[in-house]
């Protein structure tokens, strides 16, 4: 055929074919070099990148440690809460699903829409939590309508279970996700971002022990992040947090809560074992529900807790400072005895008031107490007696003995953010106010007014120190820790200080306090048959009489605070404590609350059935303002 290749043509073609061969062969050689560079020379780098692509380390949260009371009763444990979540890739009609879900759960549909749209950029297989901490009713409603709700399911997530009715909320504190700022602190060393840590109370102080060690699991994920399978050999199981036994007695704690609930007042109470400082009960009210933090608190609840005028988040037992009122009188009496200024037989005549430095100081009892000795003065809470003793002592000696007994200093309890009260001294006034102390100021200090301020927990220490004869025990909450194998008892922290008060002198004070409760004194309501309860009431003015008149119309609660400090039995006391009623009007009301606590304590000790929770009527709360000195102006002020 004419198209057959001529020799000339063939040579020409062969030349061009060879050229093509060489071009293609060199292209292949270059490709081989290119693959060599990636696959051999730079293999390490790319191998790491491939690994980072498909391996994910997922944290496995460790269950937090359980908190038990001193008798092994569970106080705080872990529970699973239910979240209702949505997986968008399984829904067909998102709007219809959300509408049905809103109807089934009673959650606002717009809020559901908002949650979904906020997280719309996330991969559609990832669950979006729509209802946090759902109620059983909501979970059942969702399950019942499952076929109408494709892509909606309920998931169980670990959470913390605190006792009901906000019991001891300030003691336990609460948990929440660790914050950026906390991650920088050594207190939270070992916490990973996103981890749940203690944010207040015991949860915060013992966070390191309670937290345990987070485990992790390594999973293979695909390009859209879906988990394909778990690599067991590269995973580690979480280690549970330590179980802790607290010094708290659940029954005592309950009795405090019940007493407060029946009284209708806010305030604080701390009950100790005066022999070693073990805290048996600890309350601050108003309280909050730490359970609402455990599943992630919603913004509205958090805001309302923070703006609430009553400050429910404040731990009044540690952070509230108040005038001790008459409960301070034992410190003054003790100082007088120890300094040798008075003896128990020292008497003062009370005619309803006395003059000091040109000013007339009234006793609370308008008619006066007549001639009183130390015991009667404490029993009757005679102001004039202590004005006199205080005046003889001077402020610095009062300061010395009050401090030795735990007032105006920190108790160093194992709870965060304790505040310190104040027992004034000349030096304090000089350094803090740069003014000289006037002897006239000592008169108010002697009855626990003026600049004196104390925290309820320091009052508990003060009472315990009176009870045990001068050992300022350190209140503490931890009794034993379970290290996974066995219980390791926690040694009680050493006392803050110790003074040897001669028993005879102390006995005079104790006799007075016994008389307060058992001898027709102001604390008669705390009396327990067969157990020599000693106590002292106190009423602390919130505002001066003149100020009260001016502020009467402001609507603020300016009623006096009521105190009751106690220990029992009189000889070899085993329990001591304080009840503080904020605006509780007067001390005897606090004694009513203390009565229920003591009744519970002794019923338990004696193996008798524990008293039922008191009713409001049982406490016989007295709302009359009993103090003559405020009464008249207030009446005229129209309160």
């Amino acid at each position, binding site marked *: 055929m004419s198209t057959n290749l001529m020799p000339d*043509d063939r040579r020409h073609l062969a030349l061009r074919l060879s050229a093509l061969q060489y071009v293609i*062969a060199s292209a292949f050689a270059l*490709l*081989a070099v290119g*693959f060599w560079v*990636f696959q051999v020379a730079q293999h390490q780098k*790319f191998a790491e990148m*491939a690994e980072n692509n498909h391996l994910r380390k997922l944290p496995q949260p460790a269950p937090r440690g359980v908190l038990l009371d001193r008798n092994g009763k569970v106080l705080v444990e872990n529970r699973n809460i239910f979240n209702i979540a949505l997986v968008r890739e399984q829904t067909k009609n998102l709007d219809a699903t959300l509408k049905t879900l809103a109807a089934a759960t009673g959650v606002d549909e717009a809020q559901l829409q908002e949650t979904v749209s906020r997280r719309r950029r996330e991969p559609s297989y990832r669950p979006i939590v729509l209802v946090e901490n759902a109620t059983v009713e909501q979970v059942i409603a969702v399950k019942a309508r499952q076929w109408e709700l494709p892509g909606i399911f309920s998931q169980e997530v670990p959470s913390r279970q605190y006792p009901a009715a906000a019991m001891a909320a300030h003691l336990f504190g609460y948990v929440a996700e660790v914050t950026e700022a906390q991650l920088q602190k050594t207190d939270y060393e070992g916490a990973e971002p996103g981890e749940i840590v203690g944010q207040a109370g015991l949860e915060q102080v013992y966070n390191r022990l309670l937290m345990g060690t987070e485990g992790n699991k390594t999973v293979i994920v695909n390009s859209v992040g879906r988990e394909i399978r778990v690599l067991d050999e590269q995973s580690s199981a979480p280690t549970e947090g330590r179980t802790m036994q607290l010094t708290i007695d659940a029954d005592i704690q309950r009795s405090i809560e019940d007493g407060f609930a029946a009284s209708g007042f806010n305030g604080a109470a701390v009950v100790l074992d005066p022999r070693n400082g073990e805290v048996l009960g600890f309350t601050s009210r108003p309280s909050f529900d730490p359970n609402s933090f455990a599943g992630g608190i919603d913004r509205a609840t958090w805001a309302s807790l923070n703006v609430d005028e009553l400050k429910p988040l404040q731990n009044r037992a540690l952070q509230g400072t108040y005038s001790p009122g008459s409960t301070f009188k034992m410190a003054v009496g003790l100082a007088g005895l120890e300094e040798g200024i008075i003896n128990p037989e020292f008497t003062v005549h009370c005619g309803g008031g006395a003059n000091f430095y040109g000013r007339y100081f009234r006793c609370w009892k308008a008619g006066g107490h007549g001639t009183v000795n130390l015991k009667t003065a404490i029993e009757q809470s005679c102001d004039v007696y202590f004005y006199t003793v205080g005046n003889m002592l001077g402020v610095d000696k009062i300061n010395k003995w009050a401090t030795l007994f735990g007032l105006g200093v920190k108790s160093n309890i194992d709870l965060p953010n304790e505040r310190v009260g104040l027992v004034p001294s000349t030096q304090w006034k000089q350094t803090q106010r740069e003014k000289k102390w006037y002897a006239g100021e000592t008169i108010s200090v002697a009855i626990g007014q003026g600049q004196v301020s104390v925290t309820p927990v320091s009052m508990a220490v003060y009472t315990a120190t009176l009870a045990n004869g001068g050992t300022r025990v350190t209140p503490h909450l931890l009794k034993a820790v379970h290290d996974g194998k066995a219980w390791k008892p926690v040694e009680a922290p050493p006392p803050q200080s110790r003074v040897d008060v001669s028993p005879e002198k102390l006995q005079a004070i104790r006799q007075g306090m016994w008389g307060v409760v058992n001898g027709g004194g102001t604390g008669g309501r705390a009396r327990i048959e067969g157990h020599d309860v000693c106590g002292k009431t106190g009423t602390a003015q919130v505002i001066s009489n003149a100020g009260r008149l001016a502020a009467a119309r402001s609507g603020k609660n300016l009623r006096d605070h009521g105190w009751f400090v106690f220990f029992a039995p009189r000889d070899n006391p085993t329990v001591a404590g304080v009840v503080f009623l904020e605006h509780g009007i007067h001390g005897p009301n606090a004694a009513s609350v203390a009565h229920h606590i003591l009744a519970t304590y002794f019923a338990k000790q004696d193996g008798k059935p524990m008293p039922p929770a008191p009713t409001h009527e049982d406490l016989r709360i007295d709302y009359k303002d009993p103090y003559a000195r405020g009464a008249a102006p207030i009446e005229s002020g129209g309160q």
Partner: protein
Amino acid sequence: MFERRLFFHVDWLLLGAVLMLTGIGIAMIYSTTYVTPPTGGGHAGPQVWTQIYALAIGMVALLIFLMIDYRMFAEHSLILFGGLVVLLVFVLAKGSTQMGAQRWIPIGPFNLQPSEFGRLTIALLLAMFFGENRRGARNTSDLVIGGIFTCVPLLLIAKQPDLGTAVTLLPVFLGLAYLAGLRLRLLGVLALAGLMVAPIAWKFALKDYQRSRIQTFIDPEKDPRGAGYQTIQARVTVGSGGLTGKGFRQGTQGQYKFLPVAHNDFIFSVLAEEQGFIGVLVALGLYLFVILRSLEAARLAKDRLGAYLVGGIISGFSFQVIYNVTMSAGLAPVKGITLPLMSYGGSSLIATLAGFGLILNVRMRRFTN
């Protein structure tokens, strides 16, 4: 038509290499499309079976294009060309749309992609056109006429849009024209014209996604989650394979879908990941053998038509292989250019095997008259 003695002139080595590459391709498709349901167990993906059916049909096509004298095909190439254009117009009018492009004609359970047969048709037509021309050297007018023939299907395919497949027509035309004695100076002018047109094409002819693909190829880190993703992942896939690879079905990049369309455009990346540099050398060696052996067939061809036909087919094939392998290492912009013989795709496999039928045909009939 088919004489028994011709059987002895079949290039069994070339056929063997072609089938080996196809086999490797099916194995890699099996590996990347393997289905592992969360409930456990696992089975081959449907793509494997499609590819095996296509291989069977492709072998029939290969036999047809082997047994009938290639001159018969060349003589009727204008009719084939007409048929191709009709099909491409039909695709644009009524074809099925997948992944944003209109490329397929559904035939029963299969989808025919007519554009894949473009290279073969163009090769036949141009081989006929240049081969039956008596003059020794080709001049400008030949080039223009050849160019027009090439551009008709090229534009129709580009319109689908399937720029990748469309572009593969060019090396068929250029390779064939080059073997036919096209002056190198003319090729140079053509290249220069191409360079001058490029900025205009950049601005007007390319679509946004095409522009972004080229931009991100130049700087993939600029948009590592978006358009640069494929380029980066291709390099990671290849590089993480190392010398000996991660093992069959053990690749993480392909298995967990970090590399998109792994069984298709990026099949070679998966091979590199699972079989390593050694596997790459084996595959590249086979491809190079196939190409050089085919060029040998062109050299041995008894007439210009046969030589040009083989040259045209193998130019297109070589371009596809080189471009796809370069791209699979993240060294070229991502284009929809598949790896012939290995990538998933029935039409492509059938057309490629038919093309090798013609190459074998030319070599087999080198002594006939």
